[in-house]
């Protein structure tokens, strides 16, 4: 994305809307290597800490009548559990911990990114691509381990007439390999676009004539972003369940 600071430019926007996505080292100004502690590392660690804190607090004092934390934790647990059960089937429940982990990490990373001055880790394709490739590899390997070569029947649509099947097989194959691409870019694109729009309106707020409208627009966009943050985490999780279902039951 934007590689240098744009603050020095005169007139109009005092900052570039893409500046918020710059990866910076936390200590010093050196080059970013794979082991460098950057702001991405910090906010990803914070997301993990928030998940842990919430669930430790929720389960430390368990009661029959749940308190605030416990009811939120129970609600989230039940929500994801029902989703896995409904979409992936009874035998998909075995993989529930993985899906729950994905959902919680993404939802907390998205919500933490909405704090002012925060860094949205899920707006980087590098982060979401790791999550999506993890899902893709897990599901593919699982399919081959469980079904062997008959997993390839996923691409052979037996419901279609015979002459169309080879064409459909090619299309199914392409769509199968496009999955991790769309899976990762959907999350990153939605997060990045929303935050960039908020920053664009924030730039307009500096102009006195239109600042009331700009501030109203920021408020409205912020509300929309809270919704989008949750929905994108939900969509990522639900698609993981769909892919898992394909691996568990590859027969059309």
């Amino acid at each position, binding site marked *: *994305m934007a590689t240098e600071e744009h603050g020095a430019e005169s007139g109009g926007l005092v900052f570039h809307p893409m500046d918020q996505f710059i990866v910076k080292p936390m200590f010093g100004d050196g080059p970013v290597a794979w082991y460098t502690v950057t702001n991405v590392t910090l906010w990803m660690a914070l997301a993990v800490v928030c998940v842990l804190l919430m669930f430790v607090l929720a389960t430390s004092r368990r009661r029959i009548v749940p308190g605030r934390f416990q009811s939120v934790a129970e609600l989230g647990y039940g929500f994801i559990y029902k*989703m896995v059960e*409904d*979409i992936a089937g009874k035998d998909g429940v075995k993989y529930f911990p993985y899906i729950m982990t994905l959902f919680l990490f993404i939802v907390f990373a998205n919500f933490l990114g909405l704090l002012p001055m925060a860094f949205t880790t899920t707006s980087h394709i590098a982060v979401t691509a790791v999550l999506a490739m993890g899902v893709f590899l897990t599901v593919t390997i699982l399919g081959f381990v469980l079904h062997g070569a008959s997993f390839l029947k996923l691409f052979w649509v037996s419901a279609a007439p015979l002459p169309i099947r080879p064409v459909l097989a090619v299309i199914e194959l392409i769509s199968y390999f*496009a999955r991790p*691409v*769309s899976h990762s*870019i*959907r999350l990153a*694109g939605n997060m990045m676009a929303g935050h960039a729009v908020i920053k664009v309106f924030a730039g307009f707020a500096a102009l006195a004539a239109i600042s009331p409208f700009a501030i109203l627009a920021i408020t409205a966009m912020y509300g929309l972003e809270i919704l989008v943050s949750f*929905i994108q985490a*939900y*969509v990522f999780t*639900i*698609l993981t369940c*769909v892919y898992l279902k394909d691996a568990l039951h590859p027969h059309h």
Partner: protein
Amino acid sequence: MEGSIVEMGALIGAGLACTGMGGAAIGVGNVVGNYLSGALRNPSAAAGQTATLFIGIAFAEALGIFSFLVALLLMFAV
């Protein structure tokens, strides 16, 4: 502002690629509109179909995301 004609072509192409997002918008609108018209006719069956609704939205949106990807590639990778 100076740049080569290749850069200009890439930026124009990025702008053109964004028209694909309009197609995704039509697709998502279609999915949700049909869901809503079905849900208003039979509200008791609507709750069971929200997961299908979101899967449909995600698949319709995927093609718009590919056009966004093409725009990004043209802007930053060409």
